[in-house]
């Protein structure tokens, strides 16, 4: 007998709203469907009413965890459009900030993965180690998250001489802890039993479902934007792309853990090699045209497309975030697995639902693909009106007026 289990939209384990409909036969999963958009904020549309400088703060708030990946991708796109070459020091600073972010994001993921399998020690542990990184961000940029470090044509703030030893000290202290953490997880028979051979993704599937980032690398697909389309200063430092072959949850965890160590290596080299010099170049008038920017976010390739009509606001901004690309592979990972592994496999992709929210309008059974500002507003008004009707009698519903 088939049963549908809904997970979400507000589930105690998930921080963000999303809905998975899991169809099971007994203990086994036979199908999965996915709904989202409780978080849709219309960022692409809002960006059209902001100047390039303002849009930078907006794309920073697409997702809180990748709050430097999106700005870098956006800067890359605008710099590609306007043909701007940023100064060397800015390139190194971008690399350092992006790698610090990767460390904090991967640690955050490890903690959440522990939380999902009910192993709260791992959660507390990982987040404890993440805290010094957040403090570093506070020292560098003044904010623990959403650092506002990027600027078109360079970076907004310098990494000062006196901060460099603090960064060095923090990452030096972090490194043995990560080693210890990796050993502890990989030696733990309970963890191994829980993670190994769960949610397997074969290399063919990883390619066919177009996965990116650590998910693809854990299945043996050797891709990394940092190496394949170098931006910032990744082509000037020594590091390697981590891949695994198994494609299960354990492999994803191993990829992420080893990537933290690679990030530490990159930061160390960048701090040593960082040349003195200006932080930004003069930004010329943005010409008519289009630009593409890519960045390897902690979750995979982050892609921004900017179209300009010669004014100081982007004419069109298109964002393709890594989670949106990675989530469809659930269909191949889930089917045949057990109910108890659902959340773990969900977590393995490290999906960030803020990046994945879209909206479509269906008119007489046809999807309407082009919508103007007016259409969108009317749609929103209509929906609010309906909700108002619906919630008339409810306490709190009257407050909608």
């Amino acid at each position, binding site marked *: 007998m088939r049963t549908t289990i809904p997970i979400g939209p507000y589930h105690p384990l998930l921080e963000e709203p999303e809905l998975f409909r899991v169809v099971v036969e007994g203990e086994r999963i036979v199908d999965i469907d996915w709904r989202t958009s409780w978080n849709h904020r219309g960022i692409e549309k809002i960006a059209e009413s902001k100047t390039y400088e303002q849009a930078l703060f907006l794309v920073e708030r697409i997702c809180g965890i990748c709050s430097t990946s999106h700005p870098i991708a956006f800067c890359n796109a605008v710099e590609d459009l306007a043909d701007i070459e940023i100064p060397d020091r800015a390139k190194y600073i971008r690399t350092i900030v992006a790698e610090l972010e990767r460390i904090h994001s991967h640690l955050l993921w490890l903690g959440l993965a522990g939380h999902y399998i009910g192993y709260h020690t791992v959660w507390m542990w990982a987040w404890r180690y993440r805290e010094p990184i957040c403090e570093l961000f506070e020292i560098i940029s003044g904010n623990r998250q959403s650092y506002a470090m990027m600027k078109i044509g360079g970076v907004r703030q310098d990494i000062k001489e006196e901060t460099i030893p603090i960064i060095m000290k923090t990452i030096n202290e972090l490194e043995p802890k990560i080693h210890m953490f990796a050993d502890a997880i990989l030696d733990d028979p309970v963890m191994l039993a829980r993670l190994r051979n769960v949610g397997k993704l074969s290399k063919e599937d990883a390619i066919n479902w177009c996965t990116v980032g650590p998910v693809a690398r854990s299945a043996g697909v050797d891709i990394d934007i940092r190496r394949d389309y170098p931006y910032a200063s990744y082509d000037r430092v020594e590091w390697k792309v981590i891949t695994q072959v198994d494609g299960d949850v354990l492999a994803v965890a191993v990829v992420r853990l080893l990537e933290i160590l690679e990030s530490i290596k990159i930061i160390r080299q960048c701090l040593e090699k960082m040349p003195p010099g200006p932080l930004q170049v003069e930004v010329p008038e943005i010409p008519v045209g289009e630009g593409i920017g890519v960045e390897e976010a902690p979750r995979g390739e982050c892609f921004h497309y900017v179209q300009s009509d010669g004014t100081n606001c982007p004419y069109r901004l298109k964002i393709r975030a890594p989670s949106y690309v990675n989530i469809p592979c659930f269909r191949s990972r889930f089917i045949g697995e057990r109910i108890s592994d659902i959340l773990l496999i969900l977590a393995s992709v490290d999906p960030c639902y803020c990046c994945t929210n879209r909206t479509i309008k269906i008119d007489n059974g046809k999807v309407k693909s082009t919508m103007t500002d007016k259409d969108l507003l009317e749609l929103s008004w209509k929906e*609010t009106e309906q909700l108002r009707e619906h919630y008339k009698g409810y306490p709190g519903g009257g407050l909608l007026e």
Partner: protein
Amino acid sequence: MSDNHKLTDMSRWGLKKSPWAFHLSTGSCNNCDIELLDALTPRFDVERFGILLVGSPRHADILFVTGIVTVQALPRLIHVYNQIAKPCLVIALGTCACTGGIFDGSYHQIGPVDKIIPVDVYIPGCPPKPEAIISGVVKALAKI
């Protein structure tokens, strides 16, 4: 605290000790949610004061709302608010929840939160630091 939920001595006593919180994201960027979780982890560790994130609104004394309240999240916000045992405290966490922040004017926005449900404490910041969140909770408790 909205007027229709008058506090009795009993409920005041009940609310003040180890308040349990439910967290609802209604169109946030994730950062506020992470900082809220961060307040629970070892550095800040609010669990020592008995503050706990619970899985069901029916168990909660405090409702943390983050995000701009999107059209799609609105019905859920109202449902969750109605499920919480009154009196309860509602805390708008982050600039988004307080005013709409950078997303103000979006076609998918209905909020800010205080347009929909009564809010007791506003914690601005994008995202607010865990210290700010803790101080917000303290202020909320002082109101009781």
